[in-house]
């Protein structure tokens, strides 16, 4: 009985060691949606101290580079009568779990990137893709607010234009 117990213990430690090896990338990046992303595995002394990862997996303060603007976004800016991306400057490609996604503040939900779309390596390009995806979703008849407006809009100020 004693021998069996010892054998069991050894196997579990071997398994956990394997799992640790698999999760840590020796090259220092993590592959998400076809793009190599740094940071997730990096553990600073402060992170170790508090026992959790601090911050985002993308640069939340990245200012858009207008050289990477897509034709769709150019048209959107023109139609809205703005000089630049305006509120879209704060939109970035984030992640829900390990799936690339953009957060829709109106729906309070993540819009996950379809698998068919390949995630660009550059964050500027990724962010432009996120902006385009978000606009298309917000203007889609399948957006949750469409259903909410149909259900709850009332009074003269909120008459709907169908």
């Amino acid at each position, binding site marked *: 009985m004693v021998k069996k117990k010892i054998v069991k213990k050894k196997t579990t430690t071997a398994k956990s060691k394997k799992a640790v090896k698999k999760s840590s990338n020796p090259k220092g990046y993590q592959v998400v949606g076809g793009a190599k992303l740094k940071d997730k595995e990096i553990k600073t002394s402060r992170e170790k101290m508090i026992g959790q990862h*601090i911050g985002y997996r993308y640069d939340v303060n990245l200012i858009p580079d207008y050289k990477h603007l897509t034709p769709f976004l150019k048209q959107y800016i023109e139609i809205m009568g*703005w000089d*630049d991306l305006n509120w879209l400057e704060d939109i970035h490609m984030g992640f829900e779990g390990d799936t690339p996604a953009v957060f829709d503040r109106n*729906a309070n*939900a*993540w*819009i996950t990137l379809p698998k068919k779309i390949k995630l660009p390596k550059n964050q500027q390009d990724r962010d432009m893709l996120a902006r385009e995806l978000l606009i298309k979703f917000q203007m889609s*008849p399948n957006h949750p607010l469409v259903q909410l*407006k149909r259900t709850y809009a009332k009074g003269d100020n909120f008459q709907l234009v169908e």
Partner: protein
Amino acid sequence: MAGLTKKTSAFDDENLSGRSQKLFFEVTEEENFTYYGNHEVDFNKRTSIDCEGITAHDLNQKIRDAIKKGYGSIVIKNPGAKHSLGVGILNKLNLIFEGSLGYFGIGCIDGPTVRINGRVGWSCAENMMSGKVVVENNAGSCFGAALRGGDLIVKGDAGARTGIDMKGGTILIGGNAGAYTGFMMQRGRIIVCGNVNANMGDSMYDGIIFVGGEPHSLGTDCVQGELNEHEVRWLEQKIKNAEIDCKVPASKFKKYVAGRMLWNYDNLEPAEKKGILG
């Protein structure tokens, strides 16, 4: 979402998790630039409303009625520094105020371009979601409080606690800014062409503050960062678009960011909390 018909698309096999709602839309469908429920307006169709003798509520109602009729440019005459003017506009629109606004002007807007040919009181453009607001003169305290998106421009000076608790967007100040500018800001950008008073960026969680002049003092967890070439180009473009005559070249601006010592504050030991707060 009851009542929504599931659209057949190439993405039906997606495994969504967390708070995602299982909704589908066609990303390759024809380009559509209309928000559901918004009114189509023509920027060349212009009207004016006289604010003399009417309440803020009545004026706001008249603006909405004009939007429904398709007016894309509305001029408000004699605003008389009344409070809560032009709030809750959720449509694209050109709105011009021929005078000053009182407290809480242009709050909770999403989309319009607003020009104010005068001054604004406390909490102008609070909770703004998108659009552009240009104030030709000075602004009171809490300018752009809880801003979430869009461009907020004041050509003169701004008061204390400018951009307090902002979560996105850009605030551009042509003159000086008051104490506690960027207080508790969580995201977004503040550009000050002049000087900033005491405790700039106090308890800021994230975001960037660009200063052309000098900050009197930095608040807790606000540290100087390095300005890169890409940010200089962006600054130049923003200042040019805002038609502000800034005497400091964009390359001479200083950049301030969060030191991130306050992140995960609740998990810190009491001694650490004391160390950060001084």
